[in-house]
């Protein structure tokens, strides 16, 4: 059996282990979910403004209070689904030297990190369900009606997760070289807040800023799946956006792989 096939066969078990871990630390996970309530706070801000007068987007689209509710509830849901935190785990294991154990195992460490992050998905989805119910019951008209959009949506979410994960790996692997690689993650988040549609729907940006966001990776981590599910992007446009997501996935995947290979060679498992 080739190593790749062996790794693949281990995936279900790894996912089961990860799920058990998620179930064991469920309180911690719920707290993590609660700590991503920023979209809900933004929803309060924007609805308080849109209740006075509809907000005019740069493209001419008017956003009513209900539009904002639909948008930010979707942001909250997508944010839960695309979460990855391998940067912190990787950083921790490199500094503590425990990564050595993972390197000895016959499974690629990155596969192990990916499955352990993914295994939290079922429980995270469960926690998100009340918000989904709220969204469907109260603001169904804010969701896409095109069935094709809903077929595209899982692909878009998967790409967004992949991009997030590869960025995590890249930053985490920089811990091979520098002690303060997590500061980079902080920087990533500052940009993410601005350019991913997390605080402001990108459509409301001044045109030059919106154009800039199209060329940065942040939009493809969050805004694209949200735009697909809210039907803000028509199907053809959405298809183009998902293709760009795939392109980013490829680019960042190569960067992550290169950083990892470069870093592992320097790894000395200090700590002991």
């Amino acid at each position, binding site marked *: 059996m080739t190593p790749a096939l062996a790794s693949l066969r281990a995936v279900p078990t790894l996912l089961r282990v990860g799920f058990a871990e998620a179930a064991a630390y469920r309180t911690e996970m719920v707290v993590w979910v609660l700590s991503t309530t920023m979209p809900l706070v933004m929803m309060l801000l924007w609805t308080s403004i849109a209740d006075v007068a509809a907000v005019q987007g740069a493209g001419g689209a008017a956003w009513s209070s209900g539009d904002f509710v639909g948008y930010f509830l979707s942001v909250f849901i997508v944010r839960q689904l695309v979460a990855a935190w391998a940067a912190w785990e990787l950083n921790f294991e490199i500094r503590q030297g425990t990564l050595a154990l993972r390197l000895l195992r016959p499974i690629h460490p990155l596969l192990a990190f990916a499955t352990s992050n993914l295994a939290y998905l079922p429980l995270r989805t469960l926690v998100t369900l009340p918000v989904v119910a709220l969204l469907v019951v109260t603001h169904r008209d804010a969701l896409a009606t095109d069935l094709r959009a809903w077929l595209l949506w899982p692909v878009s979410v998967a790409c967004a997760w992949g991009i997030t994960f590869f960025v995590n790996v890249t930053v985490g692997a920089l811990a091979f070289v520098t002690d303060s690689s997590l500061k980079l993650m902080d920087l990533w988040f500052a940009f993410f807040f601005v350019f991913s549609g997390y605080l*402001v729907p990108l459509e409301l940006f001044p045109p030059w800023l919106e154009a800039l966001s199209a060329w940065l990776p942040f939009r493809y981590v969050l805004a694209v799946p949200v735009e697909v599910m809210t039907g803000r992007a028509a199907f053809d446009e959405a298809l183009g956006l998902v293709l760009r997501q795939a392109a980013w996935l490829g680019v960042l995947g190569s960067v992550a792989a290169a950083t990892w290979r470069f870093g592992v060679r320097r790894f000395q498992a200090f700590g002991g």
Partner: protein
Amino acid sequence: MRRAASLVLVQLRASVMLAAQYRLDFVLDLLIGAFWTVAAVLPLVVVYRGSSKAGVPGWTFGETLLVVGCFITLQAVIDGAISPSLTSVLDHVRKGTLDFVLLKPHDAQLLVSTARFHPWRVAGLVHAGVVFAVGFSEVGRGPALSGVAQALVLLTASTLLLYSLWLLIVSVSFFAVKVDNLGSLFTSIFDAARWPAPVFRGAFRVVFTFVIPLVVMTTFPAEALLGRLPGTTLAASVLGALGFGFAARVVWKASLARYTSAGG
């Protein structure tokens, strides 16, 4: 009292010496903080976009910037002086090393609360200063001296409030292990403090004024700077903060009494 003061000074000096080894961190904090400041201000720029009709009801762009300024100031206080120490308590509890702190012949709350500072986070005050300056130039007039004094009183009270909230979180950690992310939860709730009070309506208004008093922390100081905060509100806020601090102390003592250590 003198002993307590000298103790705090010793701990502070240790933190400063530690930070002095990582001088580059100041520049990094300054840079990353600048991006966060942009992230905080940008939604406002989009909301107002030069129009006076749009925006948070009753608040102009400049006035809202003053709230953001207070928010950034307090965030620097949290990151620099409050959360580093209390995060280390969470660590102590998990590892069981809190016992060593408790053995020391001084009040445990004081010891754990001053254990660690991040002096370089004063970088945040630079950003807050910039935001205040832009805010006042938008408003078109500077603050009155009495307004500044009131705002300083309120910000001090807010620091006490934030510290008390953090202490309550730490108290929770005695009972529920592996809640080290409660700190992030706290930070993300505090994120809501960057908007003026009218953003919160109905139940949110009540919660954020009395339970998690975010409104007291940023909206009130901004109103004081604008010279439109009633004296009674000021007095009530200070009294409330003192009450909060006292309650946190009581809860801390009660939790500590039930602390059973990690047990190996």
